[in-house]
């Protein structure tokens, strides 16, 4: 058999303990699975979606109400994207809480972090493509954050929007980034990320007692497990998508309407809550960048996890990283909750 990328990712055998669901939570695998669902459903949506202010709303309504299984495809795309953010975050926490970011996996950790950021950008650009009253303020506020950056902000804003304010040019640009630019980046970095998993010696180092004579599972067993996980994932996604519709509001009108939803998309609610307490740049750009920098610095600045503690959850010598991640997670969750529970203005 000629070696292929598939065989690169599926070596003849891998350590059993490191392929257990209890250890990986299947989060990395599910991220790949969801990305594939997003690619397929997104390509299907492109057959009908028209990225102009006048046609965006009607074309989404056509997909949702008139195209056979259109609502299902749109809901699959929507729910896969939302679940991907959650699953990718779980994947990152698993890596931090098991100390798997240790050298030699430090660089791949950064690749993963950038994938997470790309997923958020994809989610936000996709959200904007709805071009309805539900996204109006999120689009205005979100892009004005770019404008608030000192020195380069205003120029960057014009590059992103193609105009001095949201309009047809912005929709075209968001569309291009969403279906092409960001996707190419995500695929490129994503393939690099999973290629590096094998190059860095598999998902993680097994626990010490299994390192000399580890129990191993075969390539075929791995594929079977992945297949089973994909079956269950597909079924659950279908179930969710068939019965919980993705949000849709009336098309964005020329003139500000009171119907506009003033909340950010859920994954940026924490930023919206931060923004309620201060300056646009410091709260909306600087703090999120600091959060990102802190996450990225974990493998480089914090003490490495001791080799004999690797391969298990919550290694003792990884405490600082675990506590730091926990604090960040609780802060983001708390802010999100506060924003979600805040009474509408």
């Amino acid at each position, binding site marked *: 058999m000629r070696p292929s990328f598939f065989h690169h990712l599926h070596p003849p055998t891998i350590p059993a303990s490191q392929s257990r669901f209890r250890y990986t939570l299947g989060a990395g695998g599910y991220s790949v699975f969801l990305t594939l669902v997003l690619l397929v459903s997104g390509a299907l949506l492109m057959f009908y979606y028209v990225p102009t202010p006048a046609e965006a*709303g*009607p074309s989404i*309504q*056509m997909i*949702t*109400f*008139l195209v*056979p*299984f259109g609502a*299902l495809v749109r809901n699959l795309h929507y729910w896969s994207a939302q679940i991907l953010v959650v699953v990718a975050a779980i994947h990152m926490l698993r890596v931090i809480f098991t100390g798997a970011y240790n050298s030699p996996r430090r660089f791949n950790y950064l690749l993963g972090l950038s994938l997470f950021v790309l997923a958020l950008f994809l989610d936000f650009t996709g959200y904007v493509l709805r071009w309805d009253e539900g996204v109006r303020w999120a689009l205005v506020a979100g892009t004005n954050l770019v404008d608030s950056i000192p020195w380069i902000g205003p120029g960057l804003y014009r590059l992103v929007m193609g105009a001095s304010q949201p309009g047809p040019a912005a929709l075209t640009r968001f569309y291009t980034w969403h279906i092409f630019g960001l996707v190419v980046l995500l695929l490129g970095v994503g393939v690099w990320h999973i290629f590096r998993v094998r190059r860095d010696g598999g998902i993680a180092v097994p626990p010490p007692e299994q390192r000399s004579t580890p129990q191993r599972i075969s390539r075929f*067993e791995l594929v*079977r497990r992945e*297949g*089973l996980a994909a*079956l*269950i994932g*597909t*079924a659950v996604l*279908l*179930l969710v998508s*068939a*019965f919980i*519709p993705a949000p*849709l*509001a*009336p*098309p964005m009108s020329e003139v500000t309407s009171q*119907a506009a939803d003033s909340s950010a998309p859920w994954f940026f609610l924490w930023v919206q809550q931060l923004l309620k307490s201060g300056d646009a740049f410091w709260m909306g750009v600087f703090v999120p960048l600091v959060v990102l920098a802190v996450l990225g610095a974990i493998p480089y600045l914090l003490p490495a996890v001791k080799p004999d503690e690797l391969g298990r959850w919550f290694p003792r010598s990884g405490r600082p990283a675990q506590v730091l991640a926990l604090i960040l997670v609780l802060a983001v969750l708390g802010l999100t909750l506060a924003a979600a529970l805040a009474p509408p203005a």
Partner: protein
Amino acid sequence: MKIRLFAGTLFLLVVLVAVAWQAARQPRPVALTPTISGKEEYCLTCHADLPEISASHPVESFGCVLCHGGERLALDADLAHSTMRGGSNPSDLAVAGLSCGGSDCHSGSPELQRDHVGRVLTSIQTTYAGAIASLRFSFGAQDSLAARQAIAPVQALHPPAGNQDQRPQYLEAFDPAAESNPFLQSFGENCLNCHLRAEALPGNEYARFTGCAACHPPTAGSDLSEPDRQPVHQLTTAIPYTQCNACHNRGNYDLRTMSFVPRPDAPADRLHDYYQPITQFTRCEYELDCLDCHTRTEAMGDGYLYNDQQEQQYVQCKTCHGTLTEPPLTRTIRNEADLALRLAYLNPDVPLQIGDTIVVTDKGEPMWNLRQLTDGSFEMVTKVTHVRYPLPLVQGSACTQKPEEQESRYCHACHAVER
């Protein structure tokens, strides 16, 4: 492992069946492409049971969205209805210009009297100017009875007809909060229920919409005690007196408490119950419908602003019956563009044609349901009930009225019906 794979595939199949079942439950979209807009709409998926709005607005030409707005492709009720103009009533005066107006529709040429939406804004039924002026005058907020304020600010469509024209050119908004007199404040709060911008009072007897739809769609059923009496989805120019009744003859304002006192009974018999106790009226006023005599511009405005109802309402007994010396004014229809033909067309029970002679008012408005027959006598066809009445003329009768006393109240002195 194999048993797990079996369970997994079974689960997936069950879910797929559930998804297919869910898809099968969705209503089958019903498309309609109105010829005017040429844009597909799907309202009929749910609203197939609605009656045609009117013969002049066939759904194949107009569809629903042209008048109602809304999301034409959405099959989710909330989303589809979210952008409808005026909620369930696109003819509310806040949006009538968009829904009913347009240069090809009811904001058309003033010469052809197709500017209905513009004119109705000047009507006393919309401005309520007379009531506001008389109340503000009575309580010292203005020094004459001339109208200055209206429910909403409005500009007359025409310049004054001459130096003697006392009609206002502009009416500003009446703002109860800006009044210093508490009576005027409570007048604003309690008594502004009967103009075309106001929501109807609760109760079956008041059931009507706002704007154009206050009059043009008939309210279902004449039985006032019937629950859920609501206007039906139909437009007509044959408006029965019961529709006028949603506002008129409904009760009185008590000026001491500045509140509306509804009449306690449900008038059923027109002769005995309909008019208020002291009113004088004659047979045609309880047998005919209001619009058999009162003209369209009396009710809907003619583009001038009026100081009060009496100034706008000008049809008198003599308009149809003439005087001792004069028969009623008449006009012979010469061409197809005549307004009378257009109006009669909407009501096919009046077989009007070119060459017919009809009665006209002193402003020249056609009384298109009053035709001169070949023997020189006149015949009325009632617009709603389609009954034919011979029209008795004053000229040649035993009437002994004085020539200078020609207003209806002088006629009532002899012709009022005893109850």
